[in-house]
């Protein structure tokens, strides 16, 4: 069941359940998406991200629980991860079709309410970098181009809530940077729910984050709150001279979990907690008389926090689970 609310949240779900059997699905998800923020929804394959997004978008039904919408009816746009369009329509026609369908459903005029349709279509295609392909039929588009077009066709509706399911999964680095900048620019005027496996992308654009695992919400809050709570308290220290003696000294301290010296005066220190490290490391470096060159936090990112939270082994690099 979906209801409307005038709260500060664009979307709230209450004990959302969708059981696909065998443990798959959602098992009581309480999502709270703040209005006019970019909300990152992360989780492994099969965690339930697409199911949550589909239920919010009205494409699937929940077995139990309800969705409370804080945006006007018909002001939601949804971009699936592998969008498709009629192959015999051009990119500009797809955006015009998006406007035409929404207008026929009485969903408002979108961008057309403020400017001429042709201007609105051209502007949205330019925003996603498809100006040159505007008159090309979409049948020959790559998946990345379709993702951009999907975003243009959604933005032209001027939605209050934009749901993006893996919107950058097929984009090249330049395209990804462009789209992320575009999404980031929506903050403050629109609510965006952004689901992705590419955790650095989520970290870059999302102010709030929800972590789904096996159909349950493990964490929900600010991005900084998640990183502070779950990232490993590890620092890379670089001192002038050999780092070995300093590492031996640090290993004797009760708040130090490990201290490994490397080449060129480098030293990696892991503390029992972020607070203990933040308080103790600078003090100890000072009392040891070390000549500090640099001090940087390591693994203080969403990926580390995600892996810690979901109990996954921290790999050498790469995405959490592509």
């Amino acid at each position, binding site marked *: 069941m979906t209801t409307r609310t005038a709260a500060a949240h664009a979307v709230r779900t209450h004990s959302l359940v969708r059981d696909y059997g065998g443990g798959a699905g959602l098992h009581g998800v309480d999502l709270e998406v703040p209005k006019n923020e970019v909300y990152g929804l992360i989780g492994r394959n099969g965690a339930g991200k*697409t199911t949550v*997004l*589909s239920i919010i*978008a*009205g*494409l*699937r*039904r929940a077995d139990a629980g309800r969705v409370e919408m804080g945006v006007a009816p*018909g002001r*939601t*746009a*949804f971009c*699936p991860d*592998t*969008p*498709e*369009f*009629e192959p*015999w*329509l051009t990119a500009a*026609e797809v955006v*015009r*079709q*998006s*406007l*035409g*369908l*929404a*207008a*026929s*459903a*009485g*969903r408002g005029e979108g961008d057309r309410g403020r400017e*001429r*349709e*042709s201007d609105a*279509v051209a502007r949205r295609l330019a925003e996603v970098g498809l100006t040159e392909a505007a008159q090309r039929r979409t049948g020959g588009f790559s998946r990345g181009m379709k993702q951009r077009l*999907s975003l243009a*066709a959604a933005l032209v*509706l001027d939605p209050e809530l934009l749901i993006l399911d893996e919107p950058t999964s097929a984009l090249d680095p330049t395209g990804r940077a462009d789209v992320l900048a575009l999404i980031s620019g929506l903050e403050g005027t629109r609510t965006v729910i952004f689901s992705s496996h590419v955790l650095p992308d989520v970290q870059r654009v999302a102010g709030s984050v929800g972590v789904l695992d096996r159909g349950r919400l493990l964490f929900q809050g600010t991005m900084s709150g998640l990183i502070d709570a779950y990232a490993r308290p590890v620092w890379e220290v670089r001192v002038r001279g050999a780092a070995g003696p300093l590492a031996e000294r640090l290993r004797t301290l009760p708040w130090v979990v490990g201290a490994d010296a490397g080449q060129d005066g480098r030293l990696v220190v892991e503390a029992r907690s972020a607070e203990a490290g933040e308080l103790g490391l600078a003090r100890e470096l000072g009392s040891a008389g070390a000549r500090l060159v640099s001090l940087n936090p390591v693994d203080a990112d969403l990926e580390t926090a995600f892996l810690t939270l979901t109990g996954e082994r921290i790999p050498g690099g790469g995405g959490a689970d592509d």
Partner: protein
Amino acid sequence: MTDLTAWRVEWLRLWRSHRLLALLAVFAFLGFSEPLAARYLPDLLRGSTGSRLTVTAVAPAVPADGVGGYASNSLQLGLVVVVVVAAFACTIDSRPALTVFYRTRVRSFAALLIPRAVVTACGAIAAYLVGLAAAWYETAVLIGGPDAGAMAASALLGSVYLAFAVVVTAAAGAFARSSLGTVGYALVVLLLLPLVGAIPRLGSWLPSALVRAPDALVRHSATAGHYQYAVVSAVLSGAVLLLAGCRVGARRETG
């Protein structure tokens, strides 16, 4: 720049995907070939058998043979093509990602299904009429002019039946997940109807009675009035099927 409404998109689907061309080609071929076959059938038989006895058994062609042959084949062979074209247009959920695009922009499933059914039906009727005109012209040239009133009635009743077939296919499209599944469901219904029509007194009430109408009309073995119940049942059952399709489609999940 004009609005790209659902109706215009459906026209573009018919035109740019060459489905209208396919329909026109099939019906025009039938329209030109049937009078030709009717006119030269005795010669063909003579050539193939070499026996004068066989030829004497074939009656000389009359105008009704040319037009009637087209009417029968267009509502059988042509019907299959119409069903295939309608199935690929009306099976909205056959491509899930594309369905998401459509369903998240409209309020009702009817807003998607009805334009597809109506525009496809118009395309099918236009192709049928083009074929009928071709059959009429060639029959007039090769055999003799058929009765204009019977031709007009044939055009009307044949069009009603094709529209009914498209609606059956559109309704099937709301139940099926694939275009081929839709073709299967629709053909089963359309092929079963004449069998049900074999039941005494029921036949004239079923839309399938319209399949034989054009041939019977041009041969003057029936008048348009004979088919009034079939027309009414085609219109009513078509409306009910379309409504059912819209309801079923609206309840389906995607994404």
